[in-house]
């Protein structure tokens, strides 16, 4: 059961974060390509978005490791 819990936590967290990060990066790259003068602002927004999105899979992996090893 612990293995299943770890797998669900890691897998679902990684799936959501992968989709979210992909959308953020693709839109930012698209924006930089269209308006290179806004690169700084777009990078700042991307930095904040990626930082917030990545919290979920990291928590999932840590909780999965803890459930698996303890």
């Amino acid at each position, binding site marked *: 059961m612990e293995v299943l819990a770890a797998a669900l936590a890691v897998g679902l967290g990684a799936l959501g974060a992968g989709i979210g990060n992909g959308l953020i990066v693709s839109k930012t790259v698209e924006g*930089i390509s269209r308006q290179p003068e806004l690169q*700084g602002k777009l*990078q*700042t927004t991307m930095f*904040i978005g*990626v*930082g917030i999105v*990545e*919290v979920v899979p990291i928590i999932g992996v840590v909780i999965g490791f803890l459930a698996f090893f303890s």
Partner: protein
Amino acid sequence: MDEMMKKATRAALLFSACCLLVWAAVPEWRTVAAGLVLGLAASVSNTFLLRRRVDWIGKVTAMQGPRKMSLGLAGRLATVLLAVMIAKKYPEQFSMPATLSACFIMPFVTLAYAYFLNKRNS
């Protein structure tokens, strides 16, 4: 991004200094303070790694570089895992919940600073 990062790092350093004061002055809260400092160190290092990667993606996009890029999630994941495993190995020195919660302080601090900077500028 530079101004925001500077302010967020300054806030994290201030918070770690407060935690060190608590560690020195209140023996009952020693494990919590040490865990918070450990988690904050991991969080700050993660933020600098992410900033470097975002800068690199911007440069690569502007210069029409290689199409394959990664955000380096594995490195940041490994940093947090290292901090949590240290807290798990030495439970008498570091509190695990404090370490785990402090690992995610910097993204929210950065978000708060960005909100206030945006409000001030507009």
